[in-house]
């Protein structure tokens, strides 16, 4: 594995709402190495997307605010950079595919307008118009969209959901970024084309050797796409490590619950899962945010926040069960 | 009856709604203005310093007095206390709003429900195209035209505004009903063989109530505004009716020297309209409505 590309350290984010402050991120740790494919797993609303928006500094603010933490990209803190410098990272070095392609494409501009703008500002040197157009067509061909000329002239509503997501993938890869963030890129697609799009994405990043953060709530997808896995719960990374190790021996009670929730083909078909719900961010549980749902909860769990520490090798977990 | 679980649930819902509503300063201010205006209107004969000045009253010795402790808002050219006349004016404004809305909302809503439910049939075409015709002219102008062919009076002004106002409710409810029509609970009711009446009024209507209610609150303001405009040009209330629009129109003749005659009634209109507007905005936030 190569050098560390992205290193998120102890990131805290709050959302100001009418009722008070939502403490959405509660000290997130996550790192990505060159060429690594990281899977980030967690229930809906646990802060996966928020974390990634912080990396690009595109968190809507207000209401969102980063209160603490560092996001190092090749050793430099993105959060401390002047806007102009962030501008040069966005698109060119890190780009992102959003969960819902319909929401991520501007409804009132053509695909061509949007894709060509991305290419224009994503390339390191200024390109002539003709060149930009050719690159746009090439990008669309790479994601196996038929008739790219016609697609350039189309509006998002004229395309199907699967085509829109291919367009988004084309946009994200057209600038040849070092790190690609894919935020549940298939969740909003028909089941029948989810697999196609995943495979396409996988092939494209493999060919380019792009580092990827793959956000999902499906362990199956992680198993297929990632070589490193982080598990997130209610604003915290609670476990992380190499995929094989994590799947072989999940440590955190929540991760174990997640694994149980996946119905197995052999044996009893009913998933057990994790009882309870994600907590209220307005007034989250003290200490470990998982303790109200945890079957192994100890008195200490409601008083202190467990640190995120290695247990064996690079397998890390935030749980007092493994920390004497 | 008050112990039944349904009642308890409703009480709980109302309590929670009130809590959310009261946390929003905008709606509380709106409610305050509305209550204040309503109180002054209801008890005008008791709270007005000179209740007899509301109608045909002349006292030239005190004519055109600037605001003073004796007459907080001054007096008009007939020597009538403007503050007292404003309190009585609130009565006409509120009455106008209440009467117009109670005439307009039921037919407007029913037509909207029918048109929305029968979307795609000739019934929808008929109702909505007629609605479009009414919406094709500025409402004030059509109301003016209707008023002009009738004898100008408060009553006729209310009739004229009502004639112009129902299409707005038809259009609002039409939009809501035609999308609600495809909701599962409506289809479920249809499958079980519920009557059309039941579907329209028991399934669809309750889901439109918050929108209608919010629009009514905002419209109270608009109706009062249009009513005052009608009186202002002399096609609504006639002197000596203490109508706020008429008072502004009369006062405008004595500008700029006797500014108080026009300015205070104008402020009174603004406070009334503002109250209903803020209240309506509060409801809109409360019910989380986007359009209207």
């Amino acid at each position: 594995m190569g050098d560390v590309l992205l290193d998120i350290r102890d990131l805290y984010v709050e959302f100001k709402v009418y009722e008070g402050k939502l403490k959405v991120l509660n000290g997130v740790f996550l790192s990505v190495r060159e060429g690594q494919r990281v899977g980030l797993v967690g229930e809906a609303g646990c802060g996966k997307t928020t974390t990634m928006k912080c990396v690009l500094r595109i968190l809507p603010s207000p209401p969102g605010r980063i209160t603490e933490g560092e996001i190092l990209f090749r050793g430099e803190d993105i959060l401390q950079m002047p806007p102009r410098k962030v501008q040069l990272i966005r698109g060119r070095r890190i780009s992102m595919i959003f969960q819902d392609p319909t929401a991520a494409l501007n409804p009132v501009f053509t695909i061509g307008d949007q894709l060509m703008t991305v290419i224009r500002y994503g390339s390191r040197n200024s390109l002539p118009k003709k060149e930009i157009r050719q690159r746009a067509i090439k990008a669309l061909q790479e994601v196996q969209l038929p008739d790219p000329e016609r697609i350039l002239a189309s509006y998002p509503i004229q395309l199907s959901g699967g085509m829109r997501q291919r367009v988004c993938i084309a946009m994200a890869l057209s600038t040849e970024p070092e790190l690609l963030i894919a935020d549940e890129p298939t969740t909003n697609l028909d089941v029948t084309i989810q697999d196609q799009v995943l495979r396409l994405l996988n092939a494209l990043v493999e060919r380019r050797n792009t580092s990827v953060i793959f956000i999902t709530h499906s362990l199956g997808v992680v198993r297929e796409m990632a070589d490193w896995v982080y598990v997130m719960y209610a604003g915290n990374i609670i476990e992380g490590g190499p995929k094989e190790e994590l799947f072989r021996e999940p440590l955190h009670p929540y991760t174990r619950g997640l694994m149980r929730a996946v119905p197995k083909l052999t044996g009893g078909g009913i998933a057990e899962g994790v009882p309870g719900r994600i907590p209220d961010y307005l007034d989250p549980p003290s200490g470990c945010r998982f303790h109200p749902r945890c079957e192994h909860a100890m008195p200490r769990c409601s008083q202190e926040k467990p640190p995120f520490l290695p247990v064996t090798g690079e397998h890390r977990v935030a749980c007092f069960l493994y920390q004497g | 009856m008050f112990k039944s679980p349904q009642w308890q649930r409703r009480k709980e819902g109302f309590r929670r709604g009130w809590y959310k509503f009261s946390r929003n300063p905008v709606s509380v201010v709106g409610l305050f203005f509305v209550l204040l205006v309503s109180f002054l209107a209801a008890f005008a004969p008791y709270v007005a310093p000179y209740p007899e000045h509301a109608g045909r009253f002349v006292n030239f010795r005190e004519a055109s007095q600037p605001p003073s402790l004796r007459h907080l808002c001054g007096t008009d050219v007939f020597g009538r206390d403007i503050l007292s006349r404003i309190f009585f004016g609130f009565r006409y404004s509120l009455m106008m709003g209440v009467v117009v809305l109670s005439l307009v909302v039921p037919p407007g809503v029913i037509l909207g429900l029918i048109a929305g439910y029968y979307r795609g049939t000739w019934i929808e075409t008929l109702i909505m195209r007629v609605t479009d015709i009414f919406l094709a002219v500025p409402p004030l102008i059509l109301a003016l035209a209707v008023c002009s062919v009738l004898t100008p009076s408060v009553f006729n002004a209310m009739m004229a505004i009502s004639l112009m106002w129902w299409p707005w409710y038809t259009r609002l409810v039409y939009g809501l009903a035609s999308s609600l029509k495809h909701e599962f609970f409506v289809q479920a009711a249809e499958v079980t063989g519920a009557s059309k009446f039941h579907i329209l009024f028991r399934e669809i209507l309750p889901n439109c109530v918050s929108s209608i209610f919010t629009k009514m609150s905002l419209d109270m303001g608009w109706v009062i505004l249009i009513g005052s405009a009608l009186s202002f040009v002399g096609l609504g209330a006639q002197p000596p009716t203490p109508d706020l629009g008429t008072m502004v129109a009369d006062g405008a003749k004595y500008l700029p020297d006797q500014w108080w005659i026009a300015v205070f009634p104008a402020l009174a209109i603004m406070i009334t309209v503002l109250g209903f507007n803020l209240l309506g905005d509060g409801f809109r936030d409360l019910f989380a409505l986007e359009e209207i």
Partner: protein
Amino acid sequence: MGILKFLAKRLVFSVFVLLGLSILIFLISRVLPGDPVRMALGPRAPEWAVQQLREQMHLDKPLPVQYYYWLSGALRGDLGQSLFTRRAVIDDIKEFLPATMELALFAGVIMAVFGILFGAIAGRYSNTWIDNVVRIFSYIGVVTPSFVFAILFLLLFGYLLGWFPTAGRLSPWIQRPPVITGMVTVDSLITGNWAALGDALWHMVLPAVALALGGMAQEARITRATISDNLKKDYIASAKGFGVPERLVMLKYLLKPSLIPTVSILGLDFASLLGNAFLVELIFNWPGFSRYGINAMLRKDLNAIAAVVMVLGVVFVTVNILVDLVVAWLDPRIRLGAERGK
């Protein structure tokens, strides 16, 4: 092309609406209590004269026949004779309409431009002091009748400060431009009469602003709401995330979709602006169509009333077609005939 089909559909619909409106206004003007001819001629006119005028105006025929005469006349541009001025109504309209159109268009431009500008600023900087100032001003704008604005402006800027003229379209010492379009500003622009142009604009400021404020406040409120909503949309985050410069994101990718709701209600706001012009012209002594209309209404001048409403209907329908075209240009979802909101 989609846009042509869209336009054709819209035109057919407008013709239908205007036809409906003509029936409506005809009914309103004919079912009134009292005898308009008797009223026009006065109580002392001999019976034969009343009878003659009644026949001349086809008022003795049944309603559908009357409507037929009235409509076929209207289509030929003959809107009948004013019962008071005894002139052809169409001539009165030609004389008075341009002044009102000039005022209304000027006010409409002020309304749209400043409403969108203030709303966009408030939405971009929502929940800051700028937003609060804009919000307070929009509330004042929404709740104040335009005739109150007109009176206050007249008082403050006209009489007290004396910055602006208080009545009419031109100062008496200015050489009037020849009547070409009837709009003084346009005519003086065409003839290069700069003094008249300046003077006309100077006369127009107070009435136009008084007219514009109500709609401006509405536009600002809607624009603010859409801008601050759309700022949270993924497509804005996505455009920024791809390194598109902030200014381009704001002025292009945020502004265009955010204009759609605002522009959609411009037509309605222009309608209430036209209605309010009736009152504002009265206050500023603006020799326009609205003042003519009010006088017709106060005198129950039937033909004139019907004509005034019809003309305003035509103006309003035309404005709405223009608005729809702009919306269709802004929003491909409409142009392509797809369902909205998806």
